């Protein structure tokens, strides 16, 4: 459940919530790191739950010169008051037996906090795309009916591609075939989306087809895509790379190489 890091409970009413799904390539989580790091968001609380594998670390967004220790936990909430933006970062895998419980926890927290809309950043296995999906952009979106009511025009203007439904039994050429939503590698994305539809929550999913590997470019792709909609960054910025990479991204592929190796 949500526990405030200050003595007062923050108010999230009318805020936009951006959160990642723990999914293939950790793309959503990397994208959220970029948002928190660039907008210098403040931590306002923790999601303290038995559903995540425990981990702890020093401040992932600190500048290298900072010597202070600030402990960070597997799930934390950051806010930027002037942009009415809240961000939930999830840093650890969800325990497999607890994924339904975690989804329910999130949905009830989202509803209780009064967010005006929630955006889930996610990803799906690129190798499981069908022929049609292989040929177009790797970005997709999903929107609950509740959010569609208020954002239909914006989404039309952006020209985004909605996530296609897949036949339940591919290969069977039955015109009445059952079509269903399938997000392989997306973790709890599909569950969150269907739960939000059922409970009439305004929720959108932005997802990217990708594979495991160096997913930093994928994170930039999805965060720029999100920025096209939410306009999180100052548009007049002249810098080509507008997003600030956090210090926790160093040594992603291991330590320095021992000189004796060569």
């Amino acid at each position: 459940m949500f526990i405030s890091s200050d003595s007062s409970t923050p108010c999230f009413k009318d805020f936009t919530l951006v959160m990642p799904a723990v999914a293939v390539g950790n793309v959503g989580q990397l994208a959220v790191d970029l948002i928190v790091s660039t907008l210098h968001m403040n931590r306002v609380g923790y999601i303290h739950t038995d559903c995540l594998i425990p981990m702890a670390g020093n401040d992932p967004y600190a500048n290298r010169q900072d010597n202070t220790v600030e402990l960070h936990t597997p799930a934390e909430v950051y806010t930027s008051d002037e942009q009415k933006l809240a961000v939930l970062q999830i840093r650890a895998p969800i325990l497999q037996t607890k994924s339904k419980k975690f989804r329910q926890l999130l949905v009830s927290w989202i509803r209780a906090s009064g967010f005006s809309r929630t955006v889930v950043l996610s990803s799906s296995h690129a190798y499981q795309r069908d022929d049609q999906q292989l040929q177009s952009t790797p970005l997709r979106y999903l929107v609950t009916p509740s959010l569609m009511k208020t954002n239909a025009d914006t989404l039309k203007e952006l020209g985004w591609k909605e996530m296609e439904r897949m036949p339940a039994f591919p290969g069977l050429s039955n015109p009445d075939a059952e079509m269903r939503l399938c997000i392989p590698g997306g973790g709890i994305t599909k569950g969150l989306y269907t739960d939000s539809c059922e409970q009439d929550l305004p929720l959108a999913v932005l997802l990217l087809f990708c594979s495991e590997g160096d997913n930093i470019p994928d994170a930039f792709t999805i965060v720029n895509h999100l920025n096209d909609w939410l306009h999180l960054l100052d548009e007049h910025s002249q810098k080509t790379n507008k997003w600030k990479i956090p210090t926790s991204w160093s040594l992603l592929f291991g330590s320095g190489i021992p000189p004796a190796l060569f």
Partner: protein
Amino acid sequence: MATFFGEVLSVYSRAVEEEEDEEDENEEDKQIRRELEEKREVRLLWNPDLTASLKSGDKLPCSDLIIAVGLNAASFMSVYVLSSAKWDRVGHASVWNERSRAISSEDSPCIFYRHKDNPSVLICLVTGYIAEDQQFQWTEKVFDSLQQRQLSVTVLSDSFVAEYKTADYVCRGSAPFLRSLHTSGFSDQPVCHSLEQPNILTGLPAAVLNHCQVHRIAAVVYQCYSDVIGPDSISMETFKPALTKLGRSIQLVSSPNTDILRKVAKTTDIQSNLYI
């Protein structure tokens, strides 16, 4: 994914397990799940007088809790602290998982000791494996039993230097070394460098730190990065500075108990049968 030799492997994402369709679960599956969950429940078993006290609603008074996780940390505490014979064994945890089948108190992976003269000082030795889905539960149950006002927690833990990420490879040559991480409630000065990003703590030390951070309890973890697989006396000595701040209750014995040291070192002697 197809490999070079043509066989097809199923690829597991490092991030994700496929979400199972829970609607397909029948009553029998649910029953099995429930029984497994019950079996994996962590149970804390205290001595009868403490159990009675807890049952009547009084939590155990505790000003200092020291948790030693891992063989080096636990051996250090056994050799340098518990050997002074001023400690009573007051409880243990019953933990069942894929690597630890301990049910009785003798082979329990987790044992609690209390100081005879100062009963608000508790030590916990964790020598066995506590699974990822049990770590949060263990932490909640332990802290639920303790009164938490003015509580100060110190965790000693082991790790391998191979897991320590640094751009400067030479730094690894200085193993064993200590790194620390503490909660915002911890106002003292740690005795070593803090753990630099991108390194993180996992396991029981992380679960304890998370709990203490969220509940504003003063806690510090000292992790020893060692280049030796089993417990060794040099790695154990690295922990000494970590206990200096704890005053008179945790006095280190001046000369380590050689019997215990020998027993600990023997378990990791590499046996060679080349010259038998």
